[in-house]
């Protein structure tokens, strides 16, 4: 056997390579703790557990657990930065860990820098990342991470603009509806909830389209 503990280190390094980032991110997701139980597309989610996870993320968490959460957080940051880039010029994303503040129960790390427009472009990049990105962000939430509002809304807007011309196509609308469910859990919930209202008013969804959408109401999970 090779070194089983070093797999995440190798995968983290591969995230910087455009050829490998999608596959490496999916692999990191497999290493995430409690992934199969709670997060995942089309799974019945208990949003109360999400709030509990935020409370649980305290200095006492095991090193392995914290390490995997950090890896996923780094991946989400690099993923969110993709939406800033024009579709035809993907950016090389480099991540550096600045520090981990375990005392406050929050993980503050990752700074993105550097871009290399000479890298080959991939016009379908954002589209091909829809489902992976949703699953990564959900897993982060269920591991107690609070998503940054500005970056999350940029990511959401990228999906929204893709979906807008196809709002009668249920396959196109499905990821948008799943993304709507994440918005109340960003670090500025009123902004996320206002965005939900705006999107529903703009796109004029039918009632049956919103059947699977669940939102927290007055601090309790639905």
């Amino acid at each position, binding site marked *: 056997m090779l*070194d*089983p503990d*070093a797999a995440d280190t190798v*995968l983290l390094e*591969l995230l910087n390579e455009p*050829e490998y980032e999608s*596959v490496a991110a999916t*692999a990191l997701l497999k*290493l995430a703790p409690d992934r199969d139980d709670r997060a995942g597309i089309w799974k019945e989610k208990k949003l109360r557990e999400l709030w509990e996870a935020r409370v649980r993320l305290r200095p006492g968490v095991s090193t392995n657990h914290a390490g995997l959460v950090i890896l996923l957080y780094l991946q989400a940051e690099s993923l969110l930065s993709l939406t800033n880039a024009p579709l035809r010029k993907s950016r090389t994303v480099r991540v550096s860990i600045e520090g981990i503040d375990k005392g406050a129960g929050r993980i503050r790390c990752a700074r993105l820098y550097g871009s290399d427009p000479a890298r*080959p472009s991939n016009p379908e990049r954002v589209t091909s990342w829809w489902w992976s990105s949703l699953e990564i962000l959900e897993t982060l939430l269920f591991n107690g991470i609070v998503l940054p509002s500005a970056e999350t809304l940029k990511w959401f807007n990228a999906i929204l603009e893709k979906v807008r011309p196809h709002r009668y196509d249920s396959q196109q609308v499905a990821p948008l509806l799943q993304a709507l469910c994440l918005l109340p859990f960003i670090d500025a919930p009123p902004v996320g909830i206002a965005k939900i209202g705006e999107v529903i008013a703009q796109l004029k969804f039918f009632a049956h389209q919103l059947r699977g959408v669940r939102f927290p109401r007055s601090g309790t999970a639905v």
Partner: protein
Amino acid sequence: MRRIARYLPGQADWESGVCAREGRGPEDLGILQALIHADILRAREEREAAARARAARQRHANPESCSSWNVRAVLNA
């Protein structure tokens, strides 16, 4: 292990599979990483060649990626 990897040139899926199955320790993980970096360079060169061929309106085989095989080998480590 190193000898096996040397005799399978250009077969990244085979190479990484051999690394994952026959590897004996952390030092062999380095070989797997070297294989992955070689595959990245190969895929990049192939893609650039394909882009040049498209610009010159010539036929060119689509560049093949072995990323899924190699990452699977890392996970099996």
